[in-house]
């Protein structure tokens, strides 16, 4: 792992985001868009990116890319620069990139134009902007990589699945460098109304910064966030050969599916626990080695318990001794981008031997007796960590991070 980049509710780059996370800042604020009041939305807050794309990108890039792809390009440029701009043959550099939903804002805006002004006013860039592969394509074109630009779509597990895929691509030898990660930007009244219709979102409108509260007894749903996170992966030998600075090792990853329910997690945690065990086996480590967890922990009443059940299945009572960070408490839930951002947090935790804090844990749910990290906590010299993501559709994805 030789490069990271992100634009998130906590900051416009990886350093600012990590520093804000360690300081215990929240990226969740009241939304100021006119449509919040216009549609009397039941949820009036979320985690918009701290630095809007309009402050970074050229006007033409803003016009040609859906917001989700805009954020992806910003994060990818940072990660690529951070990796020292590898000079490999462009055909050996692969993009495997995730989104949960794709260019939804572009689609909905174009539909408005069609209804109000007719089909002749629908812009020709509509399809290339809304297609779910647009972010992967934008990164590939921006960095002129030609080893394939793949798209991974598995709802909120997408970002983590992309990283697991990247490890496989490198092990299979089909690329020398893989640019992976995920993005999402769906701040529009429709997805907010739709998530609210599922009773999935927190409605703590009067106190946004305290709304995302994983494991707290008063948690009432997840908080929508936006952002992108990108990681540059290469094999250890390749990184050494070009003299790259390494953050940590993405030692393995795995993906499983529940076949249980379209939105509800399997209460027994069969699929999720199998994903953890498979990822650990893929990484060549055992559950006994794990000493840090970045949990999916979205702050929903049911999801947080289901993840605990799955973790207990893997680690037994030792789970009470493993420091767990639930960073969505600060960032909100970036959907297809969330796993990639949390993988970056896990990588930085391994590099700095420091577990980041979980916000808003005032009264821990007695049904979830985890060792939750609430202020930055030192980790042992040899960090073996997992980062979990689970998505609608019964998708489970886990990656394993080892310190170097």
């Amino acid at each position, binding site marked *: 792992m030789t490069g990271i980049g992100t634009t998130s509710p906590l900051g416009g780059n990886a350093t600012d985001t990590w520093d804000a996370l360690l300081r215990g800042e929240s990226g969740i604020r009241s939304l100021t868009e006119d449509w919040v009041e216009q549609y009397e939305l039941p949820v009036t807050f979320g985690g918009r990116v701290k630095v809007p794309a309009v402050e970074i990108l050229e006007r033409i890039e803003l*016009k040609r890319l859906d917001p989700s792809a805009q954020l992806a390009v910003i994060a990818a440029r940072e990660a690529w620069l951070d990796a020292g701009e590898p000079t490999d043959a462009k055909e050996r550099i692969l993009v495997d990139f995730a989104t949960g939903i794709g260019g939804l804002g572009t689609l909905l805006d174009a539909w408005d134009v069609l209804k109000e002004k007719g089909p002749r006013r629908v812009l020709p860039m509509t399809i290339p902007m809304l297609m779910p592969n647009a972010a992967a394509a934008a990164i590939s074109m921006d960095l002129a990589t030609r080893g394939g630009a793949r798209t991974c779509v598995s709802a909120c597990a997408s970002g983590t699945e992309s990283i697991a895929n990247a490890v496989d691509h490198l092990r299979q030898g089909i690329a020398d460098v893989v640019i992976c990660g995920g993005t999402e930007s769906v701040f529009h009244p429709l997805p907010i109304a739709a998530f609210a219709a599922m009773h999935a979102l927190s409605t703590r409108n009067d106190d946004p910064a305290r709304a995302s509260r994983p494991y707290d007894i008063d948690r009432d749903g997840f908080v929508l966030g936006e952002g992108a996170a990108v990681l540059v992966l290469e094999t250890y030998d390749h990184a050494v050969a070009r003299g790259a600075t390494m953050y940590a090792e993405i030692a393995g990853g795995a993906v499983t599916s529940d076949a249980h329910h379209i939105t509800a997690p399997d209460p027994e945690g069969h699929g999720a626990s199998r994903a953890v065990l498979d990822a650990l086996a893929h990484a060549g480590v055992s559950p006994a080695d794990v000493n840090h967890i970045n949990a999916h922990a979205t702050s929903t009443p049911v999801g947080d318990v289901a993840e605990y059940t799955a973790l207990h299945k893997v680690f037994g009572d030792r789970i009470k001794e493993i420091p767990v960070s639930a960073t969505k408490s600060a960032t909100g839930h970036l959907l297809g981008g969330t796993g990639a951002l949390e993988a970056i947090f896990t990588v930085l935790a391994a590099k700095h031997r420091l577990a980041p804090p979980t916000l808003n844990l005032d009264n821990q749910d007695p049904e979830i007796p985890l060792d939750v990290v609430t202020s930055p906590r030192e980790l042992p010299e040899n960090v073996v960590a997992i980062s979990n993501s689970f998505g609608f559709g019964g998708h489970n994805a886990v990656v394993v991070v080892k310190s170097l």
Partner: protein
Amino acid sequence: MAQSKDEVLAGLAALVNDETGVPVESVVFGKSFAEDLDIDSISMMTIVVNAEEEFGVKIPDDKVQELKTVDDAVDFIVGAQA
């Protein structure tokens, strides 16, 4: 509402600039959209969609292919407005 050629040129230059970033002062008579201004076909189609709204005219799809230069476009729009 008929406009003069210079008024249409100014409006067209603004649309071209908005879509492609080409400076408005580069969009002048005698220039070809593709060769001189490096405007690709999808940008050209976007400019056409926006021009129909801006100038209150209809530019048929088969006509778009014939609008190769700034002169072609301005002449067509002025004619269609008349």
